[in-house]
């Protein structure tokens, strides 16, 4: 059988095309992840800048001014400085635990971003158990803190690590119960389905109105999970120097710094997704539906608007968290645990019971 040269070339061409397809496939898998990580990084820089500007406003001072326009590059400058700073390791500490702690904290939080629907059908992985993935993975972060505290061979760090673990356990339970109530209302654990369920009835369909107590408990619990004032006991400098971060410097300290803001951002995103309708734009008395009907064909436009709406709502809660940080004093550890176990837990259980009852009666 004679195979002509042109046929051989065609075979080679198709073979190369197939291999290109594989390469494209691999790139297409990693591209969204890289885009998401890039977006998250930029958001963290923005949050750090916002934190500084808002705190400066609250404290009646100027805030960052010189690094870039309005000081927007201040966080970048600080990050660069930390990157080049000497990475000190305590001589008698557990080096492996000490080194792996910050990484665990950051990685566990970054994974949670994969289930966030930033816009209409704009989500990295629409899992059936989206919100529970976040809850499960957010439980790993305190392990990193505990490892850091223990591996530092420092009493203050150790106390900080223990506090982080105790606080995390205490506030994850009310948080989970609130998420469970939302899941009951939406009949799904998928974040996309939860957003869709809220979109059906517009503004008044947001879970905020159906779960006001749950919202308050969720907000308080998420603040505690993020270890933000008034719940920043693991790193309370008035008591524990810097808690589990005491012995850290350089990029490892930078990772903790980034982790706290990543955690804050993801918590605000989940508040938006679970209670504020995610990318749902419906605002009463402002009729934008006609405008959207015209542009429904332009999917990209709708997606961009969705992302913008989600981020706008998220940054509202970020502002709330930042303002809270610079307004309230810190709770004591026993008061913190009492609040979690004796106040928020019964309320969230009661809320779940009411939600379950209402769902049963509505069948």
């Amino acid at each position, binding site marked *: 059988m004679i195979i002509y040269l042109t046929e051989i070339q065609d075979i080679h061409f198709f073979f190369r095309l197939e291999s290109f397809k594989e390469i494209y496939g691999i790139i297409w898998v990693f591209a969204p992840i890289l885009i998401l990580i890039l977006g998250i990084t930029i958001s963290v820089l923005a949050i750090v800048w916002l934190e500084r500007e808002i705190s400066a406003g*609250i*404290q*009646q*001072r100027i805030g960052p001014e010189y690094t870039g326009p309005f000081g927007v590059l201040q966080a970048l400058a600080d990050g660069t400085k930390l990157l080049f700073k000497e990475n000190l390791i305590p001589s008698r500490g557990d080096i492996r635990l000490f080194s792996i702690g910050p990484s665990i904290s950051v990685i566990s939080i970054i994974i949670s971003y994969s289930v966030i629907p930033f816009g209409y059908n704009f989500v990295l992985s629409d899992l059936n158990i989206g919100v529970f993935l976040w809850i499960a993975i957010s439980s790993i972060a305190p392990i990193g803190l505990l490892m850091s505290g223990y591996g530092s061979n420092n*009493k*203050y760090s150790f*106390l900080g690590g223990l506090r982080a673990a105790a606080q995390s356990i205490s506030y994850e339970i009310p948080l989970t119960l609130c998420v469970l109530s939302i899941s009951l209302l939406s009949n799904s654990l998928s974040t996309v389905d939860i957003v869709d369920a809220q979109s059906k009835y517009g503004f008044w369909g947001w879970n905020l109105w159906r779960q006001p107590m749950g919202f308050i408990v969720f907000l308080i619990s998420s603040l505690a999970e993020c270890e933000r*004032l*008034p719940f*920043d*006991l693991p790193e*309370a*400098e*008035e*008591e524990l*120097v*810097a808690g589990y971060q005491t012995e850290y410097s350089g990029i490892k300290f930078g990772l903790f710094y980034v982790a706290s803001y990543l955690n804050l951002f993801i918590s605000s995103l989940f508040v938006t997704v679970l209670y504020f309708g995610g990318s749902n734009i419906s605002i009463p008395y402002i009729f934008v539906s006609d405008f959207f009907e015209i542009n429904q064909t332009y999917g990209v436009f709708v997606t961009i608007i969705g992302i913008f709406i989600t981020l706008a709502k998220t940054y509202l809660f970020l502002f709330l968290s930042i303002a809270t940080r*610079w*307004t*309230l*004093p*810190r*709770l*004591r*550890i*026993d*008061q913190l645990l009492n609040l979690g176990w004796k106040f928020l837990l019964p309320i969230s259980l009661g809320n779940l019971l009411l939600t379950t009852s209402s769902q049963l009666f509505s069948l």
Partner: protein
Amino acid sequence: MNISTTRKDFMIVNMGPHHPSMHGVLRLIVTLDGEDVIDCEPILGYLHRGMEKIAENRTIIQYLPYVTRWDYLATMFTEAITVNGPEQLGNIQVPKRASYIRVIMLELSRIASHLLWLGPFMADIGAQTPFFYIFRERELIYDLFEAATGMRMMHNFFRIGGVATDLPYGWVDKCYDFCDYFLTRIVEYQKLITRNPIFLERVEGVGVVDIKEVINWGLSGPMLRASGIQWDLRKVDNYECYEEFDWEVQWQKEGDSLARYLVRIGEMMESIKIIQQALEGIPGGPYENLEIRCFDREKEPEWNEFEYRFISKKPSPTFELPKQELYVRIEAPKGELGIFLIGDQNGFPWRWKIRPPGFINLQILPQLVKRMKLADIMTILGSIDIIMGEVDR
């Protein structure tokens, strides 16, 4: 059969001298059982500079710039006590105007001290923002001090028999403006802090000292008045011209950290009242008793001897301190600031014993923090209000 008792390993932690929230260079060796304080041992002396010994080798005028380094946040009071002692020993009269100026300066200094107590106290319990607010007001007081004395903090303004200079033109009006402005700021503090539920939860019932303990430990100032004793040396001793003003002693019954906070907030209000009355009634006349430059001077001071002939600038002449002993006291922001002074017919005092309020008040700290939480150490220490400059001297 032996029942094995569980062994408890207590954690011993060093708080200070370089702990970020420690007030000055105090060191506390704290024994912890988890988060509970089992024992606390304060260690002092990291800021000891031999202030009492220095006093024995200086004339009063030479020593005046040193004294502002005891309590460096309430500098006018240290100057006042330094000149009050020799004035009483030498029976020197202070002109009325000078006395009024002193009262104004002392009360401004009291407000400045209480403000710089309030900021760190709030930071100790996690609220950072008031720290910035108090400096906004404190800067205005510094501006007034700078206009009157030439210095923001270490003034060297008081003199035996009066004050160094008269108030500059327009100063009284500026001070009036400050008083009106500051009253609105205190209302702001009360809104922000006093009604804050987390703040109340952190300070109510923390560091309680009852009346008997207060007296037994010899505590003074807001620590004393917060436990239900209406004792203020401005009323008791009537030094300067405090009896001419209408004001109330601030006191509370509870004896906890909240009571101490409320006493200090109240004292700032009363200080404003005193300043306003003093500004209204400030008389004319001299600001210094010039006669003290002429009498009781040393006949042949050692500075005129042969060994000192190459000293280019001889120190200002001073009078002899009579061969007597005397205890002088004053109501400083932190409590009773006293000096036990022994003269020896010499330009230098034979003994100059300082009774700092912070040092005496600090003694009760180990007792107050036992069986409390780790976080309460800073709350209690902050409510006591210590400055290590005067504690260590």
